[in-house]
């Protein structure tokens, strides 16, 4: 049974991720895991051809020409849950907002579909439901009940599987303790075969993610924009994405 906790006893955290690009092979397992966990329907071929694939995490490919060849890099790109999130600044209706523990949330029931946040996001990680998502009936019945099914006209994006955080918080509350780092992991991190993704509390100096952040190999994507993304990439090679 829960003990009464005063506000100061609850630890605030900043959930974040380290992506080790030396380990990431671009296999796409994270993408599949995300689709299953977060009920992301497949686009129709016609929509896909127009570039309207719904995807909260993708494997991006960067090609830097070096004469006749290019140095290619592959990296997973997802919502960076910026500390200073440009998308939350411009939302006219508080549908995307800076929530607990540093997560940038997206509330579909509120969204009016103006797509301003998509235009404002320098990382191009938000996706829009251009049409009513088509679900094969059998698969729709087997979607994850913890995540809502979206509908046409709203913007969506990676939530760091915040429903898992909610579960972890509930469990912790029932046991009268704080959420531990191991209680909560997004689906992509859980599934990565190369263990390229590390998830944890960036404010906790001992967590894997925070350690990775301090690594000399570490850097943030578009650091210069000052968005303070919660995802840090690690790359020992000179080429960076």
């Amino acid at each position, binding site marked *: 049974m829960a003990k009464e906790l005063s506000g100061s006893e609850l630890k605030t955290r900043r959930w974040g991720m380290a992506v*080790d690009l030396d380990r990431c*092979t671009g296999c796409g*397992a994270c*993408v599949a895991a995300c689709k299953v966990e977060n009920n992301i329907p497949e686009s129709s071929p016609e929509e896909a051809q127009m570039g309207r694939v719904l995807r909260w995490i993708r494997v991006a490919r960067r090609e830097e020409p070096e004469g006749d060849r290019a140095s290619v890099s592959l990296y997973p790109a997802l919502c960076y849950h910026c500390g200073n999130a440009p998308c939350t600044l411009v939302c006219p209706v508080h549908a995307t907002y800076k929530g607990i523990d540093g997560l940038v949330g997206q509330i579909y029931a509120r969204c009016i579909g103006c797509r301003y946040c998509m235009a404002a996001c320098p990382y191009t990680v938000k996706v829009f439901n251009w049409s009513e998502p088509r679900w094969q009936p059998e698969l*729709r019945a087997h979607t994850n009940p913890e995540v809502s099914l979206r509908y046409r006209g709203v913007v969506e994006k990676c939530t760091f599987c915040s429903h898992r955080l909610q579960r972890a918080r509930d469990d912790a509350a029932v046991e009268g303790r704080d959420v531990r780092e191991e209680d909560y992991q997004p689906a992509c991190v859980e*599934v990565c075969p*190369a263990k390229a993704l590390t998830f944890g509390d960036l404010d906790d100096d001992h967590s894997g993610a925070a350690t990775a952040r301090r690594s000399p190999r570490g850097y943030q994507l578009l650091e210069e924009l000052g968005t303070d993304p919660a995802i840090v990439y690690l790359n020992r090679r000179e080429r960076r994405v």
Partner: protein
Amino acid sequence: MNISRRRFLRLLSGAGVTISAHDWLFPRLEAYANERLAYGDLRGPGFTSFSRSVCRDCPNHCSLAMRKVDELPVGLRGTPWHPASLGALCVAGQSQMQALFDPDRLERPLQRPDAGAAAQAVEWDEGIQVLDERLRGLLSSGEGEKIAVVDGRTPSLGTRLLESWVRSIPGARYIPLRIEHALDRLVRQFLGGGAGGRLRFDLARAGTLLLVGSEILEHDGSPVTQMRTHGDRRENPLLSHAPTLYLGARQSPTAVQADYWIPCQPGREHEILLALAEALSKEHPQRDSILPEYARWISDALDPVGFARRYSLESVARRNRLDVEELEAAVRALRRFHPAVTLPGPGILRRPNGFSDAFAGLALNLWTDGFREEGGLSWGRDPLTDLTQELGLGPPGEADPASLSNILDPLFEIQRSPVDVLICVEANLVHELPGQDQIARALSHIPFVASFSTHEDETSRLSHVTVPTLIDLESWDLPSAAWGSPEASLQVQRPALVPVVEGRAVEDVVLGLASAGVAGPGFSPGAENWKDTVKAAVELIVERREGDLVDADGRRTLESASASAAVRSLVSGRSVWVAPSEPGARAEESEAGAEAVGGRGVRPERPPRLTDLAPNQLWLIPFDTPAVQRGRVLNRPMMMEISGMTHGLAWESWVEIHPVDARPRRIVTGDRVKIRGPRAEISTRAIVTRGVTPSVVAAPVGFGHEAFGSVAAGRGANPLKLPFAVLDKRTGAPAWGPVPVFLLKA
């Protein structure tokens, strides 16, 4: 207020219309809303449970946990205690639910009066009856050699059952369709992780990894192991600075991860390798003894001076438009991080090109001697090996890797075809092998073809009877050991849910046939029912390996007394792995494996030269990607969407070409192009990238299904239409190596 009669009536009718429209509209809208809420309605309290099964998309056999909320399956997760996957799942493995609920799955057997004719759904017994009659006829006339069975499934107790059933018929042939060949297996063994995330082969001492077109992260096999091993290698502090060199035509994910990419046009790997070897061997104490080795393969080597000149780093670099510095860096890396490991890729071996093959083996032998001496290569022990006999399935036949070519080669020469009945079990020969039209033609000349498949695919369209099969998540089996696992593990594949399609397992069909008398002497499986057979097998294993029982969770050794409880839990509860009693007992196999790599005893053939390419022609190199798996997973919409992700494509195939080739043809990214080979023409989208070398067209293998469900059919193009149907004689793997093609803008 004064209201005139007219106005009152108007208002009244207006209100009436509004109200009735509303009353008409509202229930419909509420029904609509409720339908959307029905989701919530279906669910109970929200209790989560897991049931276990095994993914058999690849030989890795990752353990799965199907997550169910109120008994409704909602997703798959890996289980952290599987020795090879450690909780990870690959991209294809996670899409299994979509295969499960695919509306295009076959539910009843299909019968065709003639191969290629319209199919007609028949009752189960009727479909099997046809097969029964055919087999019985051949059996009674003693023409067992006219029966052949191609099995495309990964090894398991089920494949053993099928194998021993076939082998019990005198003369009948059982052919496992292992697209993976000996070298792939070696790669996997070599890199394959062991329990607890430790590498089974200590790559920390391997120094440089030289990959010659060996796309360890991409081609066939077990993505999870490959990815994870790669990750482990990177994590290893000793290894994190050991360079990986990739020699090949395309910047595949493997090449992306390698520290050096030496772009190399198809067919010229040998030059670069020879240059590297020449530079290295200058300092090698055994140079004199090495040279005769060269001499066996290269006539040039007889003239050491000419050889040295011809294969000096400078001249090779010039001929291949490379920087000498790059090659020198490679040599430095190889020398510094000695001993280096060379892994020749399937692309090299599959080509009828013994030369590079041989050299790759030579280089491997040269630089991995250290490991060989220490017995570094050893095989895990597969508990199923001894089991089959005790289960009454007879001794396991020696898997003859060449048998696929033995059977298919005559197929191509129709007149000599000895096969009357061909049974393809989850083996889509027509789609997965190069030279589709040749294979299709060969199949059409076989009097009776039966196929077992979840979908109506290209092969079943050419077969007389198609029998539906179950998906792994809804059937019983004992999959074979995880690849590369030192202590071969055993896990029970159980139905994670009630079968979605009312069907029968392949094994049940086989057992049914056998009990009706369609089997050779000596085939006497104890049970008539497949589920009972599996249970009996588990019972046996537990009995024999009581002391070795390891709990799946805690990896604790169980007390012998609890063995029966363990059995129960195996069948009804959670998976258990059995540790092998004698690890490394099959050392001789490792010798054989290394021998295969060395490639001795194979006649060298001329490599395709660049001069073989007519002006304007390009090399087509087909490649594998884990999200396509040669088309086996493309019936799942998710895979259709993820496969082309990095290029921004979905539901489509593509070819990668270099700007140098694209410019004169006025091709830009996204254009539709035609690729005309000597035997066929395909049309797909072009991606112009500097990630391939010039004069190369790289195409993913697996798209372009003509059947296989509505999701897969008609999407993209299959590059395997272009190469000839050639199999690598030694490995039995199809050779889909470079094909000279013309590229045109469509």
